């Protein structure tokens, strides 16, 4: 004798679209959430002590971990007063049963570019300069998705910002006589973020927007919408790659919600 839950799951596997539609008609989703409700969000800091700073985000079953390693380099000739950073996002092999060895796939590369684009707007690389034309910091930001149950975007963005916020770089001075760098581990200072971007992603199914979509909701709908806003309400990114058309009201509402969410998340986790 099957329980209601088991029966529901079997129906979800056999006719997934009807299953989701029947829930949405009652303004609720299969996991019991309302249309604009987030899954439980857990932020864990310093999960990888070997990295200079790290964070792991759990958004429902989606798990993303970020680690930042800082190293020193000689600044590029064209930009002698700038350091640099590079973002590398990968789906870990434990994440998917169809993982293949080799370079990151297009979804991962797109995510790296997206995260890099946001960071360029909020993080100035001239603060990474130690001595112009001689020494600067370079940050390696490595993000791994350990489990993908939808909305990896929001989790990844938050893990990067949290790690960046916790990052402390030791003071380095150049000895005038020997021209060698002297590292002062006693004096560590955080990096400066102009704004705190928070990403809000909506799945789209039959013209209805679902906040923080699960993997199942994402694959049944057309393409998701991602809005990135700073804690003060500045719009940093609006991303919708194809999919069924949205009305102007829906777009405006999505941006408004995202602005509100950004300041809430900032107050709760980063203030």
């Amino acid at each position, binding site marked *: 004798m099957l329980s209601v839950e088991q029966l529901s799951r079997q129906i979800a596997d056999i006719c997934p679209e009807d299953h989701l539609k029947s829930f949405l008609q009652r303004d609720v989703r299969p996991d019991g959430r309302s249309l604009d409700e987030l899954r439980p969000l857990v932020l864990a800091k310093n999960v990888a002590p070997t990295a200079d700073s790290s964070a792991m985000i759990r958004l429902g*079953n989606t798990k993303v971990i970020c680690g930042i390693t800082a190293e020193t380099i000689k600044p590029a000739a064209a930009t002698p007063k700038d350091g640099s950073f590079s973002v590398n996002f990968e789906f870990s092999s434990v994440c998917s049963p169809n*993982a293949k060895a080799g370079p990151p796939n297009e979804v991962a590369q797109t995510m790296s570019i997206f995260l890099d684009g946001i960071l360029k707007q909020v993080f100035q690389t001239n603060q990474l300069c130690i001595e112009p034309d001689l020494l600067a910091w370079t940050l390696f930001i490595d993000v791994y998705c350990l489990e993908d149950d939808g909305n990896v975007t929001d989790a990844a963005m938050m893990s990067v910002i949290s790690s960046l916020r916790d990052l402390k770089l030791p003071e380095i001075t150049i000895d005038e006589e020997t021209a060698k760098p002297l590292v002062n581990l006693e004096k560590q200072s955080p990096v400066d973020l102009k704004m705190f971007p928070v990403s809000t992603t909506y799945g789209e199914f039959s013209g209805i927007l679902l906040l923080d979509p699960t993997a199942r909701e994402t694959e049944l709908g057309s393409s998701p919408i991602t809005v990135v806003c700073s804690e003060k309400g500045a719009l940093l990114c609006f991303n919708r790659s194809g999919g069924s058309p949205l009305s102007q009201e829906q777009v405006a509402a999505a941006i408004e919600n995202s602005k509100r969410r950004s300041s809430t998340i900032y107050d709760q986790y980063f203030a």
Partner: protein
Amino acid sequence: MELLSDEGFRFDGRRAAEFRKIQGRLGVFDHADGSAILQQGNTKVLAAVFGPREPMASQRGAVSQERCIVDVEYSRAAFASAERKRRARGDKKAQEISLSLKKTFEATILTTLYPRSAISIFVEVLQADGGDYAVCVNAATLALIDAGIPIRDVCCAVSCGVAIKDNVAYSLLDLAYSEETARIPTIVATGMPKTGEMVFFEVESRLHMDYFRAHQCI
């Protein structure tokens, strides 16, 4: 760095045959058939098992009528070691380790029970502080148990170093990173406790046979 003090303590206060603190949890991933996270000291490894399931297109060539395919992939986070090392997935070192793990688990899993199927084991090292290979084997075994896949015996691995003090050889079990890099002979052994069989054994340095025999008890 002194590996073994006069009182018999290692650099972190352990005795020669003492293991680091072991913490683990099963069922950490929802989507995998079996999963585990295992931490020995500061070495942390995640393992996920998918299967038995239909072989992927790329595995069609290896499909067997008598047994299942065991496929293992090992990877390491760039920030896992003290020095950041970003290795492309599928580089030589990872492939070598993946192959040894594959052979180990082909011997452990009762593959004849699942002909024409595939079992995939994925291992991700999040923090590497010595004994990574051994912790990978242990984590993968736990993930297999969580997945309910029939195995011959619980497959356990340990890394061991030989420290010679006053002409007596001591086995240092469960090496930490600083001990591994101290250029002593190291042995990695994988075995099955109930039957006492050895599945995998690797020595990558010179070790005198007299000292080797003394370590059979591993």
